[in-house]
C-alpha cells in the first residue's frame, strides 16, 4: 500500500463538489455574504452542519490514514487512532441525519478540504497536534456554540446529538495532547515543529476574526474556554489562542 498517499487521492461520490476554501470564501464575500455561515437562521445552521459533516468525513478518513500510515508507531497510539475512526464514522452518520432533520442534503454546499490536507502531514506528531488539538479544538468551539444555539431555538434533536459529539471531541483533544507529548519525548525539534503546525492551523481557523472570545449569540464562532479547559488545553494555550484571534488576518 502507498503510505502516505497524496492529498488529491481523497475519493468522493459524484454528488459532492470540491472547491478551495479560500475560493469559496472569496466568492461569498463578493456576493456580499459572510465568508463562513453564521448561526442566525435555520438555513445558515444547515450550511454550518453541512460543513461539519464534511469535516467529520475527512476526520474519519484522516484517522484511518493514520492507522494505516504508521505501522511502527506505539501500539497504544494505533488503538487510540482506531477508536477515533469509529467515533468519526458515527459522527458522519449523525451529521448526515441531522442534515436530513434540517431538510438539507449531502452535497448541498461545496466541500473544502483544509482538514484533510492537515491530516496528510507526514509526521504522526504533527498530525495529532494539527488535527486532534488544532482542528478538534475548533470542533469543541463550534459544537459548544451549536448546542447553545440549538437549545435557544428549541431544537432538542440538534442539541442532544451535537452534545454527544462534543463529548467525543473532548476525548480526541486529550488523545492529541497525550500523543504529542509521547511521540516527541526526547526530541525537542520534532515537538517544536508539531506545535508550530498546530499553531498555523489555529491561526488559519480563526477565519479572519470569525472565531473570537465572546457570547455565543454575539460572535460567529465563540472560543469555548470551559470546554477547552476540560479537554486539557492549558490556560496559557487558551490565552494565546484568544490573542491570535484578535490579530488574525482577513480570511
Amino acid at each position, binding site marked *: 500500500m502507498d503510505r502516505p498517499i497524496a492529498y488529491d487521492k481523497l475519493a468522493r461520490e459524484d454528488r459532492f463538489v470540491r472547491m478551495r476554501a479560500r475560493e469559496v470564501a472569496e466568492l461569498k464575500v463578493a456576493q456580499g455574504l459572510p465568508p463562513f455561515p453564521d448561526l442566525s437562521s435555520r438555513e445558515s445552521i444547515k450550511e454550518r452542519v453541512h460543513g461539519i459533516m464534511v469535516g467529520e468525513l475527512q476526520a474519519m*478518513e484522516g484517522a484511518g490514514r493514520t492507522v494505516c500510515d504508521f505501522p511502527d508507531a506505539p501500539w497504544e497510539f494505533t488503538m487510540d487512532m482506531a477508536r477515533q475512526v469509529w467515533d468519526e464514522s458515527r459522527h458522519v452518520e449523525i451529521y448526515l441525519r441531522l442534515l436530513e432533520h434540517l431538510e438539507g442534503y449531502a452535497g448541498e454546499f461545496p466541500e473544502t478540504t483544509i482538514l484533510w490536507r492537515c491530516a496528510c502531514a507526514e509526521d504522526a506528531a504533527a498530525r495529532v497536534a494539527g488535527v486532534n488539538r488544532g482542528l478538534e479544538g475548533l470542533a469543541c468551539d463550534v459544537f459548544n456554540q451549536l448546542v447553545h444555539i440549538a437549545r435557544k431555538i428549541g431544537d432538542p434533536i440538534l442539541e442532544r446529538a451535537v452534545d454527544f459529539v462534543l463529548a467525543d471531541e473532548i476525548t480526541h483533544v486529550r488523545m492529541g495532547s497525550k500523543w504529542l507529548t509521547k511521540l516527541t519525548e526526547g526530541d525537542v525539534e520534532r515537538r517544536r515543529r508539531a506545535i508550530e503546525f498546530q499553531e498555523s492551523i489555529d491561526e488559519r481557523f480563526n477565519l479572519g476574526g470569525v472565531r473570537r472570545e465572546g457570547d455565543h449569540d454575539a460572535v460567529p464562532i465563540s472560543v469555548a474556554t470551559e470546554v477547552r479547559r476540560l479537554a486539557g488545553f492549558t490556560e496559557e494555550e487558551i490565552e494565546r489562542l484568544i490573542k491570535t484571534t484578535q490579530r488574525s488576518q482577513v480570511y
Partner: protein
Amino acid sequence: MPLPLDGNFSADHSARLLRNYRYVVERTMRAVGGWIALTPEISAKLVMGRHVWDLAQHCDAFGGRLPELRAHAQVSEPANPDVVRFMDHLEEPERPDQTVERLVGVYSVLKPHLLATYRDHLARANPVYEPPTRRILARCIADEERHIAEGRTILEHLAADPSVRARAASRQRGLEELLLAARGVTGDAASLPPSGAPPRRDLADEAREFIRLETARPTWPIPEDLARAIGSLGEALVATDEPAVERWLADGLALEATAWTLLRGTRYSGYRITAFARLGNQRLVKTRLDGPSCSAVVTARWACTPEGWRVAALDAGRDAVGPA
C-alpha cells in the same frame, strides 16, 4: 458431568495461533483504515470506519493474551510466506473504482475463513484451562458474523450490475486460491469454508441505514430557467458544439481559457447531472459526460445575470471516476 481435561494443543501452540490471527487482523485493520479515504461510496466508508475499531480490539485482545501464554505481548507473526503473499494481494486495490475488489477480499474471502478458523479453535480449546482464549474467540466470532453480514450487504448494493458481479467473483476466486495455497491464516487448514447459509439479516441493519444515507436523492431545488440552461449546456457539451457552449458563458469568460480544452477530441454519448450545490446566490452544477471509451466531469458555476443564468466558471477533468 465434569468438563473434559484433555486438550488439543499446548500453550505454545495456542500462542502461535494468536500471533497468526494477529498478523492478518492487524494488516486488515491498517488496510481498511487506509482505504476509507480511497473509497468514494459513503456506505462502504462508514462500514469500514465501524470495523477498524473492532479489528483493533481483536488485535489488542490477541496481543494481550500472549504474555499469559509465556509469549511476548502484542506480537504478530505470519504462519508462512504464502500468508504474507495473500495479504499483499488483499491490500492491492487502491483505485477509487475498486471498492468492490477491496470489499470482496475482506468480506467474502478473509473474514469467512477467519470466522470458521475461530469457531474451530473455540470448539477445540479446552474449557477448563483456556477460558481466557475462549472468551476472546467468542467475542471475535460475534463481531466477524456481524462484519460479514454488513460487508456483504454493502457488496450486494455496489455489485448490482452483472459486470461488477463478474469482477467480484473473479477477485474472490483469485484470493481464495492464494489463501488455500497458504493453507489458511494458520498454515494448517486443508480447505476453505463452504459459503454456507447467508448471514442473519438483522446483523446488517446499520449497513442498510448507510445505504439509505448514500442513495437518498433529494429533489434538487433547481429553478426552471436554470434547469433549461443546464440542459442546453449539457447537450452542447455532449455534441462538443463549442459555439453553443460559449453562448452560456458569462461576459469575460472565454472557453479557450477553461479546462474544457482538456476534453477536446473525445466523443460523448450522453450526460447526467450528478451534483447541485449552493454557493451563496450562485449554483454549482456537476455534469458527468459518458462516452464509449471514457467519461469526464464538467463543473459549472452558474450566476444569475441580467441576461439570465450564465456560467461564471467552468472546470473539467477527464476520467474522473465515481459512482452515480
